[in-house]
């Protein structure tokens, strides 16, 4: 059995699967259930300042997109931070942590962007003996209109300032949760680091409108005929989140900064991919909200089996292993030449590869042979783009086969060169450096 124990900025948990700050972690009742189900940790639903709590809308707060069988692919919400009284939350956090000393309990916080507010709440949270705090600089709706959440996360100077206060007024580890609603996520990440954060977590939700009711012409979810943008999460956001995690993991300034990966994680494989890109652990929200807490059993068992199969004994064995392989386009090897090849045994002759290539790409797949439907790649036309593989409904039916050095590329009529050669030294590059650059390690 692999060892799934996780140590994230000193916060220990029996596995790397945490529940993200959201409804699943809003009260002791839910968190107790989550821990019973096996979750390694939780980030408590974001707390606000003392006084009357925020109010949520009383109409629908979710919107979604689905696959044909109503598989939930993306979820959108307009929920605010916790709408429960601060003292109640603090009392419950303390009790839960006492009941579950081996689990991670991190408290998410969002208070107005002034020193007094942060100075006031930090000791209250510290008193619960929670393991750390997460700064919610991500919530993109409602709270941001009041100068909090994403409104802070989008201004690196504010991020740095608040992180600094937190480090100053608290002994707890600080995880800064970033918003994806920025053009370059590295800038707030660098600011958090400059402020002294122990880690970043990302992503929070993405600004979105999930649908429009074509009768009432209201965006959905519709609150009395009107809607507002919400935050998008769930499987659909995973690629965006992974890109941002990788960007921070490989940035010269933030490299090595611990990352808690969030965004669309639904299975053990999603988690493993985030971690391979550099996340030290992961947080899950939508998947739990879709299927309940039991999914963690699949995640634990799947990760275990994969690690055993690959010989990874601990999480450290694979965390960050994919990071060095994320590079810039200009460093991709232009001498790596592939051709699609169709396995005629597996091909069911749907013709999708043909029409995709014919109508929209490179006219490199046949449609018939001797008057019969027949789909085969024309090597002298195939640019190796991989579109056919992605549209083919049959697993492993089309393979991208790399040409060996010395072989003739039928399309360019050139022999495949053995050496690595990228765009920086390519003769067509209008701004060549004339000195081949290698990607930074």
């Amino acid at each position: 059995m692999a060892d799934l124990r996780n140590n994230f900025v000193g916060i220990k948990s029996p596995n790397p699967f945490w529940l993200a700050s959201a409804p699943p972690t809003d009260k002791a009742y839910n968190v107790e259930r989550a821990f019973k189900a096996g979750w390694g940790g939780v980030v408590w639903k974001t707390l606000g300042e003392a006084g009357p709590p925020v109010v949520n809308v009383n109409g629908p707060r979710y919107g979604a997109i689905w696959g044909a069988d109503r598989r939930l692919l993306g979820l959108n919400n307009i929920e605010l931070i916790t709408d429960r009284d601060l003292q109640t939350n603090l009392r419950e956090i303390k009790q839960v942590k006492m009941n579950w000393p081996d689990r991670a309990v991190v408290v998410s916080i969002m208070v107005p962007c002034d020193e007094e507010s942060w100075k006031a709440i930090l000791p209250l949270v510290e008193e619960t003996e929670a393991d750390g705090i997460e700064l919610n600089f991500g919530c993109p709706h409602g709270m941001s209109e009041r100068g909090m959440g994403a409104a802070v996360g989008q201004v690196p100077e504010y991020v740095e300032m608040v992180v600094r206060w937190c480090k100053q007024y608290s002994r707890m580890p600080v995880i800064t949760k970033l918003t994806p609603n920025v053009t370059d996520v590295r800038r707030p990440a660098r600011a958090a680091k400059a402020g002294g954060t122990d880690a970043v977590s990302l992503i929070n939700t993405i600004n979105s409108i999930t649908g429009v009711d074509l009768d009432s012409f209201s965006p959905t979810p519709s609150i009395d005929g009107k809607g507002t943008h919400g935050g998008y999460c769930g499987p659909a956001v995973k690629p965006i989140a992974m890109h941002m995690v990788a960007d921070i993991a490989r940035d010269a300034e933030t490299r090595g900064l611990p990352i808690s990966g969030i965004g669309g994680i639904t299975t053990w494989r999603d988690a493993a991919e985030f971690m391979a890109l550099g996340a030290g652990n992961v947080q899950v929200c939508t998947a739990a909200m879709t299927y309940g807490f039991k999914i963690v059993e699949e995640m634990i068992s799947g990760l275990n089996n994969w690690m055993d199969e690959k010989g990874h004994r601990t999480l450290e064995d694979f965390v960050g292993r994919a990071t060095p392989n994320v590079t810039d386009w200009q460093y991709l090897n232009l001498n790596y030449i592939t051709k699609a090849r169709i396995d005629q045994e597996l091909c069911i002759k749907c013709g999708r590869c043909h029409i995709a290539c014919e109508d929209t790409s490179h006219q490199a797949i046949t449609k018939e042979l001797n008057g019969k439907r027949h789909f085969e790649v024309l090597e002298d036309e195939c640019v190796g783009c991989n579109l056919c593989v992605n549209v083919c409904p049959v697993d492993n039916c089309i393979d991208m086969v790399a040409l060996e050095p010395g072989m003739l590329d039928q399309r360019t009529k050139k022999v495949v060169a053995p050496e690595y050669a990228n765009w920086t030294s390519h003769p067509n590059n209008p701004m060549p450096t004339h000195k081949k650059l290698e990607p930074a390690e």
Partner: protein
Amino acid sequence: MANGVLKEGIAAGRLAAGEYQQNFSDLHVPFDAHEARVEADRCYFCFDAPCMTACPTSIDIPLFIREIATDNPLGAAETIFDQNILGGMCARVCPTEQLCEEACVRMEAEGKPVQIGQLQRYATDIAIAEDRQFYERAPETGKRVAVVGAGPAGLSAAHRLARYGHDVVMYDAHAKSGGLNEYGIATYKTTGNFAQREVDYVTAIGGITTVHGKALGHDFTLAQLSAEFDAVFLGIGLGGVNALRAEGETAAGVANAVDFIADLRQAKDVASVPVGRRVVVIGGGMTAVDAAIQSKLLGAESVTICYRRGKENMNASGFEQDLAASKGVSIRHWLSPKRVLSEGGKVVGLELDYTRMDGGKLVPTGETVIIPCDQIFKAIGQSLASDGEGVDLMGGKIAVDGEGRTSVSGVWAGGDCATGGDDLTVTAVAEGRDAAESIHRALIGSGITAQARLVEGARTHG
């Protein structure tokens, strides 16, 4: 009180009322919107889709399925009706396992084709329930066409001709239109009086006058029609029934399967249709299977299909054979009827020869078997009930070319009565439609005038 399955002889009311209702309900429960969307999502939207090639009416299957998947069932219905105005009935009765669904690439992939027939039914049911008409008639051409026979072939031809602006008079010997859709198709395939609802839907385009109870050869001649109309289409089906050529065929209890089925279809209450305790059906096609299954559903204790050749030679599809077996019908092969046994003029049994192939010829082996029974249905094929009235016949059917033209100028034919194609509803529809196109070309001449151009439906009018 039910008579019970054990009552000797031929009797009605063998079952309790609830059992009849259950037995004669829809064979396939129709899809609801969610099921349709999920099934539609299985379609790969194939290029040059093999299912489409396999459909005798060449419905654009990937397109209509995609329209269902995108919550546009009326668009789907229009796509279907563009090629097959009887798409509703075809969705119910096509042996899809031998046509579109057999060709579906998902069949090759996993042995489970996209349920094209069920999806086709989903879309067409919605359009027909809403009485959504997609086609307007082109301006009147002043041309008049007689269509003889209001079965699938005739209806399909009439609709296409009416669309082109021709004036159609449809004659049918029966009291109702629909042909075998009304009098032949198994009850559980077309419930809720669908055949008549579909006839109304098709003829609602206008420009079609139907004259019932008038038969070619009895009430008028082909020559008269040719003189009165600019063109004639014959879609008279196969009204005759082949003889058994077995001794004692005239005993009470020997009947034509098609008549039994027609009675059943026309009965106000199926419980009133009598059936034997022990039934033998002779034949190996769809008619034999339908008669056998429906005998069983009426409460016959035992039903046996006797076919003179092997399983592989049966015209009934594998699905139909399995359906029969699942209803408790036993199918016996290599048996040919020799003699009907009767007592007091009533059937008591059937003696059959065992048969085998001998040098490509079917011969009796010399051994025989007696199956006790009180009712025998003949389902050994239908034949043309007309001498052709001067048009050339070939192999017992009206000889036609690829466009449905007969040997007589100005006379077209299609469907079961004409050569070519399988005897299926969908082929009749295709042939009727194609003949109408040919008639239209002939009437208008090669230079189609702007006036007579087909008026497209909502699709182009946007």
